[in-house]
């Protein structure tokens, strides 16, 4: 039986080269950890056979939670008994993935003892993924985690662990406080995160500006993307400095790349027709010492992104063109105070009418965006579509006419 601590054969090849080697990582863990040791063995088998050796996961978990653990069993337990169980735990990361070493070290100590000594930092959703332990260890791991102040993240048909970009913690472009919202929404919806009652998974991601450094538009059912309403702030001296000192060809790399062609550069002044600026960030990205977003800030809420299963992949699409995320709140504008109700309305509708394993984006496709908006009580806005319909198959709302008639 494969009882070596070191990789050999095929896997050994992956210890070479300049990029950090995951094989070396598992080896390092394997020095003191039997699970890591058998993981190498099973992985080598996979490499030899070009076949995955994990069985379809069973349902395992910690008491009172419906998610956070992915059950996993080897299909060759006789060969690799130490990974016969190899469940992962998803641990809810702190917002924007900031850590103190003391907290990390404690997690490490715990995981060396109770798990494989191998983790993913981080999983694609954002969790710390503790890679592989046995069923009896789940509850102890959970108890140690909570005593360290950590909790499990989501898996299954729940609210998944929200994540956010580094935002105001270290970025000059954060148009709202991404960490605060990631944290507060996670806390507000602890129940939805731990106990499956949705038709399927639901993800929040918070990006501070249109650069979307958490890829929210592609991966979150509900994406919050920072933006601004007023004019881009221009320091013309600095623009000239870019042109002269940094030799930036402003015409080519800025003006010409602007998606709405709303800029002009005469060699001295940079002009922006702000009413036509699409808030794409490009000019600001390139001339960041000279240009800044406007001061009237908030976010665009987008809904519906998902991977291909079942009906094909979707990007999120605009739900609220502009929501102000911090006081003072004006009248007649969407503000963060509306968020809980908005989210409740969406979850209630989708919860009741969504089919099993139907993401909210697919649900909207099925019932129609217009009906969806009606049901959650939002007015349709032209910002929600790339363009109005081209096909004439319109479900005219005759109720409206009839009401109007009655009014007459």
């Amino acid at each position: 039986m494969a009882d070596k601590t070191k990789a050999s054969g095929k896997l050994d090849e992956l210890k070479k080269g300049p990029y950090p080697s995951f094989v070396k990582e598992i080896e390092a863990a394997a020095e003191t950890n039997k699970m890591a040791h058998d993981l190498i063995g099973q992985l080598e088998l996979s490499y030899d056979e070009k076949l995955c050796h994990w069985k379809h996961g069973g349902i395992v978990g910690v008491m009172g939670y419906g998610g956070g653990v992915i059950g996993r069993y080897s299909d060759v337990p006789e060969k690799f008994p130490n990974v016969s169980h190899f469940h992962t735990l998803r641990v809810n990361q702190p917002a924007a993935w900031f850590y103190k070493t003391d907290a990390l070290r404690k997690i490490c100590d715990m995981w060396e003892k109770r798990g494989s000594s191998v983790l993913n930092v981080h999983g694609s959703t954002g969790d710390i993924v503790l890679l592989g332990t046995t069923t009896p260890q789940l509850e102890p791991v959970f108890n140690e985690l909570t005593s360290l102040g950590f909790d499990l993240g989501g898996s299954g048909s729940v609210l998944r662990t929200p994540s956010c970009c580094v935002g105001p913690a270290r970025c000059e472009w954060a148009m709202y406080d991404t960490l605060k919202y990631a944290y507060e929404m996670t806390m507000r919806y602890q129940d939805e995160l731990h106990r499956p009652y949705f038709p399927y998974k639901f993800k929040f991601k918070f990006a501070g500006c249109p650069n979307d450094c958490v890829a929210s538009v592609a991966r979150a059912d509900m994406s919050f993307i920072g933006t601004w309403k007023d004019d881009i702030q221009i320091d013309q001296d600095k623009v000239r400095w870019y042109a002269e000192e940094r030799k930036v060809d402003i015409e080519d790399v800025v003006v010409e790349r602007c998606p709405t062609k709303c800029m002009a550069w005469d060699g001295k002044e940079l002009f922006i027709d702000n009413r036509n600026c699409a808030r794409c960030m490009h000019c600001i990205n390139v001339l960041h010492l000279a240009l800044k977003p406007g001061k009237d800030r908030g976010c665009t809420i987008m809904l519906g992104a998902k991977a291909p299963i079942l009906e094909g992949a979707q990007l999120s699409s605009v739900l609220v063109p502009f929501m102000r995320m911090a006081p003072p709140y004006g009248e007649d504008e969407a503000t963060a105070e509306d968020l809980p109700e908005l989210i409740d309305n969406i979850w209630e509708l989708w919860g009741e009418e969504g089919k099993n394993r139907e993401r909210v984006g697919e649900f909207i496709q099925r019932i129609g965006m217009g009906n969806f908006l009606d049901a959650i009580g939002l007015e349709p806005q032209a910002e929600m579509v790339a363009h109005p319909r081209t096909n004439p198959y319109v479900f005219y709302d005759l109720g409206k006419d009839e009401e109007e008639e009655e009014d007459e």
Partner: protein
Amino acid sequence: MTAEPAERLTDIGPPHYERFLPPVVKANYGKWVSHEILQPGVLVHTAESGDKIYSIRAATARLISVPKIRQFCDIADKYCDGHIRWTSRNNVEFLTTKKENVEPIKQAVEALGHPVGGTGNSITNIVHTQGWVHCHSAATDASGIVKAVMDELMDEFTNMRLPGKLRIALACCLNMCGAVHCSDIAILGIHRRPPTIDHDRLRKMCEIPNTVAACPTAAVRPVTIDGNPSVEVIEEQCMFCANCFTVCPSMPLNDPEYDGVSIWVGGKVSNARHEPTFSKLAVPYIPNNPPRWPEVVSAVKNLVTIWTDNARPYERMGEWIERIGWPRFFEMAGIDFQKEHIDDFKHAVTTYKTSAHLRF
């Protein structure tokens, strides 16, 4: 007196981020005014107050061991008052207010085998998934391909000489964990054989209506086998998505001969310039060839090269292809345009070329 059993904590959520923020961050939270990239992998952010924070970014394999994390912690304790963070693409960042710490940190991290880079117009870390390391669904490995590809592209991680950012992602099956479907280059594990059905286990483990409903193309149909309810798969209708397998473990698709990798290009996520967009199929299939998947590596390398050599400044892969047109892209990439490239799922008609805008 005996100790009361400690109350079992639940629903406490993650630690509050403030617990972990460096003091300079707390002091200047939301008041950063600018940043500069001092060298590949080294950023400095300046606040209104004039305070500065230096970030040294290094690659990790994402799959990381307890010993390695402890080594990172040693560095962070020594130079960063114990502060450390990870990025949304699984790079590690060491944060310090002291400029003089930058070089020592860099050296220490690189000494551990973690190159510093991934900033600006470079190729940063590959977002990827579990593969054979942990997932039952995997049509290919994740970490192995990532390692092989990044070994080849490492100079573009530690330099910033590309036309724009280039984001590579890998998912080991069609579930596409990660933002694979919107990457400049996406590597996607694929099955190419319909599920094999274990009717005996199926009977015990699977709900037939769910299994039938799981198939996007209605290839799964209920049948009776030896008097027991089961399912069959109309093989011509199967496009190997494995969604039936997700809901019913008795229908595996894994096949060492026919599984492999497809490569997709031109997606992006940021709103910068072009709107976010999906990646499109470039290479329909490359067989699994562990441990280093040389054909995948060279296909990716080729894509990076033709883009680097031809794109204008700040043009992402997809923006460049859009400018030159897909036929030219296929020509330059030396990829044979095949039947597989033509969409035939739900919205296929919206991908047809409905104009005479052609280049010859």
